[in-house]
């Protein structure tokens, strides 16, 4: 296996584009090395992008934030601006694994690993995050929910690399939250999860909402019906009931070692309710 650590994204993209055999990008490596260990993948080439300076940066711009592909989730948790503006996204990223894993894992890696249970993805989807992709044909930007097409597969073409995640500018009177269910307090993969991002209008009425669910379908799902259930409400019980029902209706999970269809469906609704309450409070609602 060849190991390369290029200094620029262009070089990295070129290496990936011309690679023969199995080639993988290495950011945090917390998924890739596990799969190498188990023999599930046997790379001929691994391209480590962490030596590319831009991948290590969190930039605040007039449009929000640009988070480099190599930024470890632990670093997000120490970023005061991000914590204030996108607490839901940060707490989702900080739920991935232990402190040890946190020191390595990245949101882009979490996204491109293309697991329906990825913790940071529902929060990013709810936040309208976008992926900045570089490839042989230049740069393009894609909503995060369009990157993953199924378990383990993405819409990225050969040689394309997600270089950064863009989070929009935080609107006033808005807030986000992410909750997942795991059997233990730490170290588990989400059995199901929910991300909620909402903006309030006057008098605490929800003006806009986005609700996403994880681990209840082949990919993370955005649930417009759930958003509609919240919009126009002050998050009263009726709205919450409708939210839960919409979430349950959007679930098409599987039975596996981590949970049953019934359990995932039921608890997805419970988590959406709880996350909505937190997001509402963060947005300044009561």
């Amino acid at each position, binding site marked *: 296996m060849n190991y390369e650590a290029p200094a620029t994204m262009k070089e990295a993209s070129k290496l990936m584009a011309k690679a023969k055999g199995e080639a993988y990008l290495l950011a945090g490596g917390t998924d890739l090395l596990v799969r190498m260990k188990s023999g599930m993948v046997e790379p001929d080439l691994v391209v480590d992008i962490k030596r590319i300076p831009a991948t290590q940066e969190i930039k605040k711009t007039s449009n929000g934030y640009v988070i480099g592909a190599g930024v470890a989730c632990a670093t997000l948790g120490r970023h005061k601006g991000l914590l204030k503006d996108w607490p839901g996204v940060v707490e989702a990223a900080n739920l991935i694994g232990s402190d040890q894993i946190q020191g390595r894992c990245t949101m882009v890696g979490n996204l491109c690993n293309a697991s329906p249970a990825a913790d940071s993805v529902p929060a990013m989807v709810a936040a309208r995050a976008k992926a900045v992709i570089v490839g042989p044909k230049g740069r393009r930007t894609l909503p995060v929910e369009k990157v993953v097409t199924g378990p383990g597969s993405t819409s990225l073409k050969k040689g394309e690399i997600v270089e950064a995640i863009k989070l929009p500018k935080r609107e006033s009177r808005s807030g986000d939250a992410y909750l997942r*269910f795991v059997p233990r307090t730490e170290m*588990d993969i989400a059995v199901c999860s929910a991300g909620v991002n909402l903006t309030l209008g006057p008098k605490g009425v929800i003006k806009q909402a986005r609700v996403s669910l994880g681990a209840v379908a082949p990919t993370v799902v955005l649930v417009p019906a759930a958003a509609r259930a919240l919009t126009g409400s002050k998050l009263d019980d009726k709205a919450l009931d409708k939210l839960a029902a919409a979430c349950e209706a959007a679930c098409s999970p599987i039975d596996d070692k981590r949970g049953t269809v019934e*359990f995932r469906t039921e608890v997805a609704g*419970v988590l959406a309710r709880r996350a909505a309450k937190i997001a509402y409070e963060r947005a300044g609602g009561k």
Partner: protein
Amino acid sequence: MTSDTSYTDQEFSLIGTRPIRPDGVDKVTGRARYGADASAPGQLVGLILRSPHAHAKIKSIDTAKAEKLAGVKAVLTAADLPDLTNGNRASYDVLENCMARDRALYDGHAVAAVAAIDEVTARKALKLIKVSYKKLPHVTDVDEAMKDNAPIVQPHVRTAGGDPDKQTNIAQVSTFGHGDVEAGFAKADYIVEESFKTEQTHQGYIEPHACLATLGPDGQGELWVTTQGHYTFRNVCAELLGLEVAKLKVTSSEIGGGFGGKTHVWMEPVALALSRKANRPVKLVMSREEVFRASGPTSSTSVDVKLGATRDGRIVAATATLRYQDGAFPGIWGMLGAMTSFACYDLENVKSVGYDVLVNRPKVAAYRAPSAPMAAFGVESCVDLLAAKVGMDPVDFRLLNAAKEGTKASYGPPYGPIGIGPTLETVKKHPHMRARLGKNQGRGMACGFWFNFGGQTCCDLNIGVDGTVNLTVGTVDVGGSRASLSLIAAEELGIPYESVKCTIGDTASLGHNDTTEGSRGTFSSGMATIFAARNAIEELKARAAQTWEINAKHVEWENGQAIAKGIEHSNLGPLTLEELARKSPTTGGPIAGHNEVVADGAGVSFASHICDVEVDPETGSTKVLRYTVVQDAGKAIHPDYVEGQFQGGAVQGIGWALNEEYIYGKDGRLQNPGFLDYRIPVCSDLPFIDTEILEIPNPNHPYGIRGVGETSIVPPLAAIANAVSNAVGVRMRHIPMSPPRVLKAIKEAQMEEEAQQQVSAG
């Protein structure tokens, strides 16, 4: 007498104190050497190819391509491990488990092995081995395996004492008890009858199996291995490979946890055989996945319990049917379940029947008080239910029915002095029982029993020229026993704890020692150490007499020194151990004490646990809020490590109760062979675990020691089930009580309640 095993009440100066452990610095600096930490010049890397099928006929194995790969030094199949077991079926089972012969019996069963110059090459070689399988029907569930039309796991197996012509998965049926249960139930005012299931769990030691094997064409070999019993490993490896026992030296490395799982050989004979074939040292280390798929977890079970009591709260009849799966090879796990199930109680009429059942899963091994936790889960759940029916407090109800000295145990013999009553009295008085509970919270308690064992033991105690002491023992230090044994030697000799250096001897330096199991480490090596020290004292007295030129009968040993007794010797000052040691070259040479003993008479042990939980009614998630362990230790030699055993056992039980389980797919393959989805408790899942050590001396040990290692895993399953049931108002009958199971139980109860309300409304 130097070898009187009976208990004497005495004042101790060191026993019961908490000095630091002798291997502490090695273990906090990374210097301590475990199974995978040893290397030998020219060593090869060994890897094992494992069956991807739950049950399959092995039609052929083609190793030609692997053998031709550059860097491969040996490829091995069952053909390289001929059957030398001489009709000994138990030994043949071990051989077959190490390497499948004509059939792969479970997912993960070894079918071939390689040794190569490095891991990359060894991995490539494994891929080049072509095994042709014919899949056979499989069964992994214990109840399914007992059905008449179930796939047969081992065609030769017949139920012991049963129909000699009938193929079956039921290897053994064991009945225990006394009295007349039918008559007992006829007298009962209240009867409880329930069925329970528990899923398979693994000991989960953090150190995978690992060894470094060297075996030459001269039949001489060495094995460095993480094991609970290096002498047993030596005997088994020698038998399977046709070696002379004395020519195989086995050294036990530091052991990174065992809990019963390192009492059996798994891949060690394969490592030795690879080394013999390659004529080079071979290091073989299991991956975590291999540990889960192919070492020895404990049984999954299906248990029925029926209890009857009279209005005044006396249990008048008790029966249990216990079905335990043994994996693919016959074991005694159902029998142990039957023996332990009712051991806590004084019962006139009791009967328990244990079934040992074969399934296509890995061979079951001992796991800390093997088989007792599952039986206790069923029985202690029913005891709570029955107490409620009678209208008694569950602790009072248990106290009223608890076994005591003279009670005929449900497994047969009468008890000596025992601790079940005192642990319950302690629970009753404990502030934990009076702490307030909040919403969605519940409290549960339960009792547990384990036998404890002794076994063949020997040790050497050698006194150095400066009066320091080398104590060499043959039991493995799994949890701090070197500290306890050093305390015992120092106590007997009357010298400081720091003057004793305790070492675990390899098989060439001591006689046979049984495997360190059955909580026997401190009990039996402690006994041998006491006797060895007393033998050394006899010698020290003789040397003092020689020095003083008086008769040895006038010499006594007090506080680490020889004293000449009698007015005629008042001019003779005491001689310390150090002085005698320094004089030893001229008084007859080195001074030592030895002992070989069969340490029978281990004291049975009882525990009662209290547990508070909070259950999230919307997700079924359970959090343990508070946990208290009360257990009889006989005598706590080093209380830190006694507490450690109580806490560790309780937490293993908590994991088992809430989240740990082997999950098999329809294809009979293990779905979760890793620490990600086999969920052992993490630090943030738990509160501090409070402990209360009771000391009811074992009459059969000079210091009153009972084993302490195992009993603490017995009550948690039931204690937590009782707590969760009290919190949610629904009886939990299936362990682990994972969130999906708890939520389902809550929902079903709600639906039932609603249906009943509709009926009554209609």
